[in-house]
């Protein structure tokens, strides 16, 4: 069951139940009540409702009648219209223009009339007793009856071969079926066509390209008998790589293949072309059709997927078709959007694989076919339970063992290290505390050192909360200096001095509505007297001369100007003021630039006698201090240096850091120490308490300690269980541990990719908060399957976050618009696409804010009530260190232990014993080697499973009115009651049922498609609709014969099926209409001849570039952008491609829904919105105009002419003949030679070309080529 969020009116039964006797009131109404009803209520019902909701109506709308109390009580499709006494009754909601219905539809009733109804319902809906024999409106849909009365739901059975009179005519069994009908109607089949015509027909039918004159000649002159010679041609063609290109395009029509989502902005569908390439490969390999279907429906679930030579999973890629539909970027009703998306998927599924229009049963039982609404929603469940996924594909045989090996090595190594490491082997607690105290001493002496008077004089450090003394012009610099808190986070670490600095990059509000670099302004310092040699300052920002710069003005003249370096980080600058001593000066910071790098920043302005500022803080001085202290504290001097930097680094800034409190209290006087520590401890405790309170109000989706929920893992990067204690992070150079009981996508390697998805949940809170650490991995919420908001977060703000905290776990939130989707269902997903890693600790639903950032819980252990000196405090740390090591050994590491240990190892504060190190680095090396062997991958757009959910029937197709649940299964008319048992989507079972030999549709539908492509019309002409409204088969027995041959004899081999048909007498018939049959069979329904067929748009274009010689036969790869004409306008207009598509076949030209190539559209290439089994063959002037005037066609004529002009030994007649052979696959006739010759002459004169240049001036031959391309022989096959 899925939840619905609108007011839900549960339906007693799906079909409306109708009473036989009306008017059985529980208590008899009073006369007064009856009078009220008769005088007030009934007239309103008659006036406003009866037209649609009474016996008067042909079919009461929504199944509701209001001309009887019992009708109202029983209600319509969406349940009871009134519940006596209940003011929430549906009828009242509807006349109040509620969410589901607004009645009467045209005009809302005036309030007094609405009040009448309210009052009446309140009274208990009194109605006089009246006997009415109800005319039943019960649903009379009888699925079994439907199924037994239409031919397609039974069979196919192998029919007996018909007897024919002309026994010599059939070459294949199938010919008997054709000939039988012809003989029945006294029609003679045409003669077999000529070899030249046949080979051209065969080439276009099989590979979609014309035969070269040499290929035609080889067949025409082949001494073998016709049938043997032609068999050779067919075999060659079916083995050609181009076969897949031709037939993949047919399939792409069925699955509405597109590379963009259409709609307003036509966003790109990622990796779409991989599916196209999959099709070409699968068709070329002749993957059996039943498997081909299974791969597309459930390739992600196949236990033994098909791998290609590079061990890449091919089957999986078949599922790409599900996602080729159009999509909307900001649906106001996201549930409707989901219903529409699934509807499109079901429509494609039904038509493509089954040849029936299941989509018609979305709102009501199928009007004609044996398909119920329940059948529709039973299919919807399969899709409801499936998810969109982008997968990184690795060679299957390589990656699995590799990952396994890495994991094993990691486990082994982790166990070894855990058992080897102890206070004795690495670092004891006492020593740990000695180092802490030594660091304190270094710091103390350094502080002293730093307090000696400096010769430098600070002029401005922007540490104050305002620009005191400075003058602002414009508003670029705001009204105060920038700090870390107010800087633009995307500018990163700017390396300013101290806490504040000046910067004109603006994200402050409400300083100006414009943000970023759009503001301009200047910042002017107080005027000062120059009495130092050097002026030093830090600068950042844009490199625009005179526009973004710091200037020094002396006596009103600008003497120095320095721009930024297009860097956000500050860089030191100094100016030598020697010549200006004693003069008055002013610093002016200028931002006169808008747009990119239109900002400037300045900080740490000081005067000094020295050119180099760091003379006093020399490394030598530091080393000396450290050496002294190390000796005094009996610690190693080199280690102490590391300890010092590790503690005094920015890393210990966050309060969560285990050493933060040590650093913070390092120079606190002893008498104040206890006070500060207790305060910190209390703060930590309060914070813990507050966090615990907040979390207790925020139900956990998962904390990854117990692994309570079923998560969905795809790809290689997410482990299948939470990280065990002591797992080593082997990605770096030093020993690091993973946190225990979280999920880490980088557990083995940052290179691996994958996705991690929660089960589906119902959202009942404002926000989702997730404790994460990591970077580069997107975490997002998918509500009702809606995935497109990454382009444009309109209506879906806050659905996605990318954690950017590699070192600390922080609460990240999905919030903002999330709160609008309460009551909807969804799941969270983490997508590791190889840009980093994510560690997931905890995921919760919440109505609270984020828990505060609190001091590490370690403080509770570290700080005892009496702790009043640094020595004791350091010892406390030492004990904690030993505890952490012990927890490591006993596999009980908690997050604080891990933080402490990681910090120590990260800064190499720990001396790992030599022998241990040797073993470790050897194994580590091995691990890295495995990591380096991780093969290259490619991305594909595919389907993945979620948890199995059954969909509810949406009454009248309205997602706001849920009815009975429809368990997942294939159409009842095919499988009866056969409910899917899978805990996942069940698509694999669905595919098995579709490809089951007893399915009456699958084989028939496919052989009919093949027939359609080889004859221009299917045996069932409506190739996508075998239902009652589709067309009846012209040759039903033939269809069944072929279907059985296909599934039984040929084991679903499409190539064998094509070959069998092409080797038939029927296929090889001449296509010339017989005037005698104009009356008896003008449309050639009985196939006394082949059909004359116009080439499809793709084939026309391919034909042009093949004949011109421009064709690039490369297979596969990203699509070529369409060449855009000025008429192709609108949002999402892509970059234009080359006029000739770089010579690639049309299947490789991009299919962007809103920008489809005009030549394709003109020649009926379908816009990909729906499954198309049979294209239109229209006849519009734009076809002629394109072939006459499209620069592409003109250009190709020239390419062709140029190629021919290389041969200077030809006579004009030779060349004309060659061109006609190339264009039409046959020699030129005498009269054609003459006509073309005349034409060349006329054009030559018109151009004024000298006679002797006839053969070399390509204009003439391009003109002739242009005519040939326009001729009917070129774009039709006969």
């Amino acid at each position, binding site marked *: 069951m899925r939840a619905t969020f609108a007011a839900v009116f549960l339906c007693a039964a799906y079909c409306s139940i109708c009473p036989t006797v009306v008017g059985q009131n529980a208590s008899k109404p009073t006369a007064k009540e009856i009078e009220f009803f008769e005088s007030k209520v009934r007239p309103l019902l008659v006036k406003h409702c009866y037209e649609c909701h009474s016996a008067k109506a042909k079919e009461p709308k929504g199944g509701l009648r209001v001309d009887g109390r019992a009708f109202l009580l029983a209600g319509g499709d969406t349940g009871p219209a009134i519940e006596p006494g209940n003011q929430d009754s549906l009828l009242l909601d509807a006349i109040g223009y509620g969410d589901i219905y*607004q009645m009467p539809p045209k005009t809302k009733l005036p309030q007094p009339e609405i009040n009448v109804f309210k009052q009446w319902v309140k009274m208990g809906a009194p109605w006089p007793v009246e006997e009415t024999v109800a005319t039943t409106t019960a649903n009379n849909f009888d699925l079994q009856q439907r199924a037994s009365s239409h031919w397609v739901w039974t069979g196919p059975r192998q029919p007996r071969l018909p007897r024919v009179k002309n026994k010599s005519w059939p070459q294949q069994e199938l010919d008997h079926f054709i000939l039988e009908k012809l003989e029945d109607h006294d029609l003679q089949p045409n003669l077999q066509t000529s070899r030249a015509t046949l080979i051209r027909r065969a080439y276009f039918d099989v590979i979609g390209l014309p035969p070269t004159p040499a290929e035609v000649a080889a067949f025409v002159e082949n001494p073998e008998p016709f049938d043997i010679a032609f068999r050779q041609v067919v075999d060659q063609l079916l083995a050609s790589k181009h076969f897949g290109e031709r037939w993949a395009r047919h399939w792409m029509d069925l699955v509405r293949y597109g590379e963009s989502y259409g709609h307003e902005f036509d966003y790109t569908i990622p990796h779409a072309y991989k599916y196209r390439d999959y099709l070409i490969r699968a068709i070329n390999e002749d993957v059996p059709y039943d498997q081909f279907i299974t791969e597309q429906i459930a390739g992600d679930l196949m236990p033994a997927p098909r791998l290609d030579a590079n061990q890449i999973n091919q089957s999986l890629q078949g599922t790409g078709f599900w996602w080729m539909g159009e999509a909307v970027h900001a649906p106001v009703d996201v549930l409707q959007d989901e219903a529409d998306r699934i509807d499109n998927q079901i429509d494609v599924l039904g038509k493509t694989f089954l040849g029936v229009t299941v989509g018609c049963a979305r709102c009501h039982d199928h009007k004609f076919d044996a398909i119920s609404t329940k059948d529709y929603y039973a299919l919807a469940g399969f899709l409801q339970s499936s998810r969109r996924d982008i997968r990184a594909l690795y060679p299957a045989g390589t990656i699995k063992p590799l990952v396994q090996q890495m994991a094993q090595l990691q486990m082994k190594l982790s166990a070894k290290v855990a058992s080897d490491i102890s206070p004795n082997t690495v670092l004891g607690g006492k020593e740990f505390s000695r180092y802490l105290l030594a660091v304190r001493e270094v710091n103390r002496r350094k502080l002293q050192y730093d307090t000696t008077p400096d010769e430098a004089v600070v002029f401005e450090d922007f540490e104050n909360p305002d620009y005191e003394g400075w003058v602002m012009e414009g508003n670029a610099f705001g009204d105060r200096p920038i700090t870390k808190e107010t800087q633009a986070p995307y500018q990163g670490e700017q390396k300013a001095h101290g806490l504040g600095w000046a910067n004109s990059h603006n994200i402050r509000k409400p300083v100006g509505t414009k943000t970023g670099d759009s503001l301009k302004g200047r910042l002017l310092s107080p005027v000062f007297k120059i009495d130092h040699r050097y002026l030093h300052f830090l600068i950042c920002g844009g490199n625009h001369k005179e526009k973004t710069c710091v200037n020094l003005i002396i006596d009103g003249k600008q003497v120095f100007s320095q721009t930024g370096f297009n860097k956000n980080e500050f860089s030191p600058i100094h100016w030598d003021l020697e010549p200006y001593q004693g003069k008055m000066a002013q610093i002016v910071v200028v931002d006169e630039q808008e747009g990119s790098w239109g900002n400037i920043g300045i900080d740490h302005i000081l005067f000094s006698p020295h050119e180099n500022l760091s003379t006093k803080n020399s490394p030598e001085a530091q080393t000396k201090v450290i050496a002294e202290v190390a000796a005094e504290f009996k610690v190693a001097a080199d280690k102490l240096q590391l300890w010092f930097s590790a503690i005094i680094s920015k890393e210990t800034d966050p309060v969560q850091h285990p050493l933060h409190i040590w650093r913070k209290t390092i120079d606190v006087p002893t008498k104040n120490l206890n006070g500060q520590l207790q305060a910190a401890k209390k703060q930590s405790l309060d914070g813990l308490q507050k966090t615990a309170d907040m979390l207790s109000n925020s139900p956990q989706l998962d904390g990854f300690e117990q692994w309570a929920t079923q998560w969905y893992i795809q790809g290689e990067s997410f482990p299948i269980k939470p990280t065990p204690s002591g797992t080593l992070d082997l990605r770096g150079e030093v020993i690091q541990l993973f946190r225990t009981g979280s999920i880490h996508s980088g557990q083995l390697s940052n290179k691996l990719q994958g996705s991690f998805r929660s089960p589906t949940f119902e959202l009942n809170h404002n926000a989702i908060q997730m404790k994460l650490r990591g970077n580069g991995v997107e975490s997002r919420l998918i509500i009702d399957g809606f995935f497109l908001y990454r382009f444009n977060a309109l209506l879906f703000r806050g659905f996605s976050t990318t954690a950017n905290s590699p070192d600390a776990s922080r609460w990240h939130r999905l919030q903002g618009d999330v709160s609008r989707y309460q009551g909807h269902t969804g799941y969270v997903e983490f997508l590791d696409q190889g840009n980093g890693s994510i560690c997931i600790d905890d995921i919760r639903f919440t109505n609270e804010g984020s828990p505060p950032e609190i001091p590490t819980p370690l403080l509770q252990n570290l700080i005892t009530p009496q702790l009043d000196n640094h020595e004791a405090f350091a010892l406390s740390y030492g004990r904690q260190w030993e505890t952490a090591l012990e927890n490591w050994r006993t596999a009980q590491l908690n997050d604080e232990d891990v933080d402490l240990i990681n910090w120590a190892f990260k800064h190499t504060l720990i001396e790992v014993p030599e022998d241990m190190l040797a073993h470790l680095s050897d194994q580590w090396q091995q691990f890295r080697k495995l990591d380096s062997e991780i093969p290259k991958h490619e991305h594909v757009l595919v389907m993945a499973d979620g948890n199995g959910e059954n969909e509810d029937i949406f009454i009248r197709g309205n997602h706001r009115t849920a009815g009975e649940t429809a368990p997942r299964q294939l159409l009842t008319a095919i499988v009866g009651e056969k409910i899917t048992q899978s805990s996942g989507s069940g698509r694999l079972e669905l595919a098995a049922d579709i490809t089951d030999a007893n399915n009456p549709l699958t084989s028939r539908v496919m052989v009919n498609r093949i027939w359609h492509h080889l004859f221009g019309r299917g045996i069932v002409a409506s190739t996508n609709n075998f239902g009652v409204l589709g067309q009846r088969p012209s040759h039903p027995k033939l269809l069944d014969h072929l279907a059985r041959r296909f599934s039984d004899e040929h084991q679903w081999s499409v190539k064998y099926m094509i070959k069998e048909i092409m080797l038939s007498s029927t296929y090889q018939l001449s*296509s010339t209409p017989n005037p005698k049959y104009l009356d008896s069979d003008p449309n050639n329904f009985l196939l006394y001849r082949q059909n004359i067929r116009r080439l499809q748009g793709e084939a026309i274009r391919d034909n042009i570039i093949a004949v011109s010689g421009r064709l690039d036969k490369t297979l596969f790869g990203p699509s070529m952008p369409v060449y855009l004409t000025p008429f192709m306008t*609108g949002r999402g207009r892509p970059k234009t491609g080359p006029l000739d598509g770089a010579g690639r076949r049309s299947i490789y030209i991009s299919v962007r829904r*809103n920008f489809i190539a005009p030549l394709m559209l003109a020649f009926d290439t379908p816009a990909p919105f729906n499954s198309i089994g049979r294209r239109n063959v229209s006849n519009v002037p734009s076809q002629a*105009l394109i072939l006459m005037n499209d620069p592409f066609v003109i250009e190709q004529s020239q390419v062709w002419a140029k190629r021919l002009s290389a041969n200077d030994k030809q006579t004009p007649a030779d060349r004309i003949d060659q061109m006609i052979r190339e264009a039409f696959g046959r020699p030129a006739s005498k009269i054609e030679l003459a006509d073309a010759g005349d034409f060349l002459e006329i054009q030559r004169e018109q151009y004024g070309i000298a006679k002797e240049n006839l053969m070399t001036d390509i204009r003439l031959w391009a003109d002739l080529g242009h005519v040939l391309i326009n001729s*009917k022989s070129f774009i*039709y096959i006969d």
Partner: protein
Amino acid sequence: MNFPRNRSGSPLSRRQWLQRSASGFGTLALANMLTNDGLAVDEGRRDTQKPFLPRATHFPAKAKHIIYLYMDGAPSHVDIWDPKPRLAKDNGKPFSMKIEPTQFNNIGNTLASPWKFQNYGESGIPCSDLFKHTAQHVDKFAVIRSMTSNFSEHTNANYFLHTGIGVQGRPSMGAWAGYGLGSECANLPAYVVLNGGLTPPGGLDNFGSGFLPASYQGSVFGASKEPVAYIQRREASAVLQENKLALLKKMDQRDSARLNHEDQIESAIANYELAYRMQNFVPELTDFGNESEAIQNLYGIHAKTKGTAIYARQCLLARRLVEEGVRFIELTCPNVSHDRWDQHGNLFAGHTDNAMAVDQPIAALITDLEQRGLLDETLIIWSAEFGRTPFAQGSNGRDHNPFGFTLWMCGAGIKGGTIHGATDEYGYKAVENKQSIHDLHATMLHLMGIDHEQLTFRFSGRDMRLTDVHGEIIHDILA
């Protein structure tokens, strides 16, 4: 080479046609025969080879042509045709009705209209100062103030408005008109889109033929030198192209003869003749040299305000297309640098500039058609895909509002001076005589002599209609 230009079109005689055509008597004979055999005739299709044969209407038509003035981006009805004093009263206060989900979900306070309204004509229909020119014609208008749409997002709503279904890939109303009526014009297709520069969200699919044959798709006339795609010959001179076409014709006719004049080959040959006529005709059509200065000034061909001259050209061209017999002409808006009529912010400037661009040309078009006696056979519709909210988006904008908006119709068969339907006191939702887009389509087809329930095309196992399974004719506005 001499392709005749005429309005009746066919190069074949009626007799030849029947002899050669697949839709001749022979088909009927076989269809009967095959039906008995369990074989149906082809799925609901018209003859795709001769798509524009004029067809009989279901009943006498009032309108021979439709000019659809599509206001891309949705003008605010409460600022133009549907004055609401209550907005001024509540200006700046929180909106007091329940607010449905909106596109941008940035709900501001109730926002009074910044424009003054006046009553015009004998009917006294009010209009704001935005459409002072157009408003002079109100006595010819039926103003429907109770329009609704099913979508509050441009693209869905555009598809819905144009095709009757809110998804991509369905036939546009203009395509249905061509499919239903055929064409009286030998030189042009039945459905022409005059693109002023703004392609509506959803793209050219708004004008597509969907599952109908490609013949019925809208032909887009651009504002560039080459008004129709591929209309311009590439040869240096006409004679160079004519020589080519002469050779082509010879070759094609021989092919056709070899194939016993098979129907689709014959039709494709004839198709070249229409293409050639179009190629010569379109430049003539778009050359306004023979229009008087007075007419040009009436439309505003030389106007300086942004967009006006472009829209004036479109309107004038629309009149000329009506004269040529084109069935359905749609005008899209010119770009006046405000992202169409879609004023989520900057309402005053945006609406002012948009109105300035179209107001005078629209008024001129009505005047001009009337003077020429063409208004009686031409239906003009002014509408957007939805309206705008009476409450603000942010402080100076309005969001999308599909629950109630205004359109007007004028010309053939329309009862002038009519106001039909009403929104609530704020102009938020239609509450009286609520009309749907399906009703609009049903009424349009009705005026063209077509029963919207009878005009069907078999696709996807259904007899598809422009009005799906809905639509009621709005009789109250009919003369």
